């Protein structure tokens, strides 16, 4: 009894402020913190390499991209005096002589810079995004600008007709700010009208919105296809003994292990107009020689090929969820009087929802940004938004527009993810 009393007293020792302390007198809270610090530090060390990698190669580039979609330094840097002089311009008549003089001063100053540092080239490219022919106006003027004499207004208008048009000056005034929305305006198939309001573009110049919609529709179709094909096979796999399940799983995973180029050539062999499938259908008389199916270089090609590639991303989460559903649930449902189909619908299927959600989100998000397959087998109608982004980065070199399109895609995916989270809840996702 005496022993028990003693230990109880030591266990409940407190300091002057009534806080619990350990037997050597340190406050219990601090002692615990100290004991945990080492563990926390080790945990951080384990995470640190990946964290650094993600920050440098993922978070930073994305931030960089989003910055590029609004960054607009070209006009501000090249034409500081002109912008100054344009401040009070009303935009209804051509600017007066003082503005042209300022423009002359800006351009002459630029000519005096080393060739590498000249700002006139980027300026021409930037203005050309807003107004075609602006680039040639700038470069032609730059060649002779050092010989201009007052009055500069006439000299500029002689050098290129664009200097006598309100449109160019409006663009310079509107875009003469360090940040711009114009890339987003263009990415959403809009443009500025004469009053500076954002309006829809001509019907025949609208590309991106319909491309976004097509990307969404194709991604949904691909997600739906992988679900329709993946659910039965995942169910079958989950009912098999481990030995056979693993063997079949290899077959399911085969797309992962085959080079994309090999697969693409295989699809071309299979799907083209003179390909295996068409030949077969013609030979057995299902279609006539003149009505061969277009299975490639269109949306059908994109859907077939991407469904094939992304199928494992649907099957794996489904399989891992289905494996954890014990057969006794179905038995219980049947013993309670449910027909096999009711038992499946009411008891089995709802329990696979976390897998369907995870698989669906994976396939949808991957396919919405997929680039290479649509580029190879998609043709014109099977192109997706990522192909357009790639074109702007590699060919038209309009990185601002590419960044705006990419940012819109990113925001769109995040919005859909948020919506999914609201409707279903991400805590119910099971990726494997």
């Amino acid at each position, binding site marked *: 009894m005496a022993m028990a009393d003693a230990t109880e007293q030591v266990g409940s020792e407190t300091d002057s402020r009534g806080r619990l302390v350990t037997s050597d007198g340190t406050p219990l809270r601090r002692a615990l913190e100290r004991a945990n610090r080492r563990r926390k530090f080790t945990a951080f060390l384990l995470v640190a390499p990946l964290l650094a990698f993600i920050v440098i190669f993922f978070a930073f580039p994305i931030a960089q991209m989003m910055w590029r979609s609004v960054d607009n330094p070209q006009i501000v840097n090249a034409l500081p005096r002109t912008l100054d002089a344009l401040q009070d311009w009303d935009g209804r008549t051509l600017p007066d002589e003082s503005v042209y003089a300022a423009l002359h001063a800006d351009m002459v100053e630029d000519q005096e810079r080393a060739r590498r540092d000249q700002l006139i080239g980027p300026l021409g490219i930037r203005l050309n995004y807003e107004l075609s022919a602006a680039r040639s106006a700038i470069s032609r003027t730059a060649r002779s600008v050092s010989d201009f004499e007052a009055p500069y207004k006439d000299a500029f208008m002689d050098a290129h007709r664009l200097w006598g048009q309100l449109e160019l000056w409006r663009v310079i005034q509107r875009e003469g700010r360090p940040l711009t929305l114009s890339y987003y305006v263009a990415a959403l198939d809009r443009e500025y009208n004469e009053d500076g309001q954002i309006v829809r573009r001509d019907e025949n110049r609208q590309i991106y919105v319909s491309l976004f919609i097509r990307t969404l529709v194709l991604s949904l179709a691909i997600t739906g296809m992988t679900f329709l094909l993946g659910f039965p096979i995942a169910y079958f796999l989950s009912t098999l003994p481990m030995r056979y399940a693993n063997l079949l799983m290899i077959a399911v995973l085969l797309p992962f292990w085959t080079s994309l180029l090999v697969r693409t050539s295989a699809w071309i062999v299979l799907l083209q107009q003179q390909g295996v499938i068409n030949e077969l259908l013609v030979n057995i008389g299902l279609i006539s020689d003149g009505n061969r199916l277009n299975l490639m270089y269109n949306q059908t090609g994109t859907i077939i090929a991407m469904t094939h590639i992304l199928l494992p991303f649907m099957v794996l989460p489904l399989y891992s969820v289905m494996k954890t559903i014990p057969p006794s649930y179905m038995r219980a449902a049947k*013993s309670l009087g449910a*027909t096999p189909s009711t038992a499946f619908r009411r008891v089995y299927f709802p329990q696979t929802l976390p897998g369907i959600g995870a698989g669906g989100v994976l396939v949808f998000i991957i396919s919405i940004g997929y680039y290479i397959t649509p580029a190879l087998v998609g043709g014109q109608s099977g192109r997706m938004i990522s192909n357009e982004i790639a074109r702007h980065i590699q060919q038209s070199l309009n990185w601002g527009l590419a960044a705006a399109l990419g940012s819109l895609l990113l925001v769109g995916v995040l919005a859909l993810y948020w919506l999914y989270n609201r409707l279903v809840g991400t805590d119910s996702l099971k990726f494997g």
Partner: protein
Amino acid sequence: MVAGQASDGFVVFDGVQKSYDGETLVVKDLNLSVAKGEFLTMLGPSGSGKTTCLMMLAGFETATSGEILLDGKPINSVPPHKRGIGMVFQNYALFPHMTVGENLGFPLEVRGLGKSEREKKIMRALDMVQMGAFVNRRPAQLSGGQQQRIALARALVFEPELVLMDEPLGALDKQLREHMQFEITRLAHDLGITTVYVTHDQTEALTMSDNVAVFEDGRIQQLDPPDVLYEEPKNSFVAQFIGENNTLDGVVKEIKGEHCVVELDGGELIDAKPVNVTKVGERTRVSIRPERVEANKDRLDSEAHLIKAQVLEFIYMGDVFRTRLKVAGNENFVMKTRNAPDQVRHKPGDMIEIGWLPKDCRALDCPA
């Protein structure tokens, strides 16, 4: 089992055999009859075929040959959902995506009952297991014992006449298990339902059942009420499987009606009751329950054979003393005595003489 008796039962297995691979029989010629309102337990070690029998009755396995009858009608070709048999599963199999109420409503819903009638029945079933307050909880929010009650309520809510239970208490701790044993028997008797209960726990079988069928090797070894099963095992397997048991091997020396004398392998003579032996000279294994071993000569017949025993260990267990003896070369011979004021507490090394009433020592078959 007599054919006439079999056809009277509510549940009848008539010559049922089951094989999974076409080479070995898991269930060998099973004949069993369960009366209406009876609580029958299928008891046996794992792999003895008891669960297979239950699954055949529920309809999840088909009998390879033979007939299963429910209320006089053959059900071999009736699918499980049309049999109307309530079932409690080993891990409860409560649907995790439904609340308790929805779980109980499920069998009523698939039977097309209206909402108000459903709710009435759900509440009645929940009150039956004292879980009325949990109707809106999910199974994951319940303890094991609570889930067990819900599973029971779900199996009973659609008022089946037959309920099957597949080791339903296996996952509970000892105290809860004992409590649930009592509740299940009470419910089964109050509602008058026929129950077929599968377990490998003999205490459960003895305390709950009207009749116990002991399974081994795909056959029923003995089918009797618990007291008969315990006190009059018909063969060595049952004697060994049910309760604690001392065995001694020997040869039958003489048989006189209900009494025989067995000469043990060491030459000692003991009294026994012939059960599985018929003639002198037959090898036998006798079986005596530890609590029927007697060291006090005053309680034995004067002409009873006594046998020498050496005390190896004395364990004080509170209500009883457990004395381990060396008898005729068997060092695991146990004597259980009640902790009475006049009871002798033996010390290791003591040499004593023990005996028993001839009817308590059963001369059974001698397994090879």
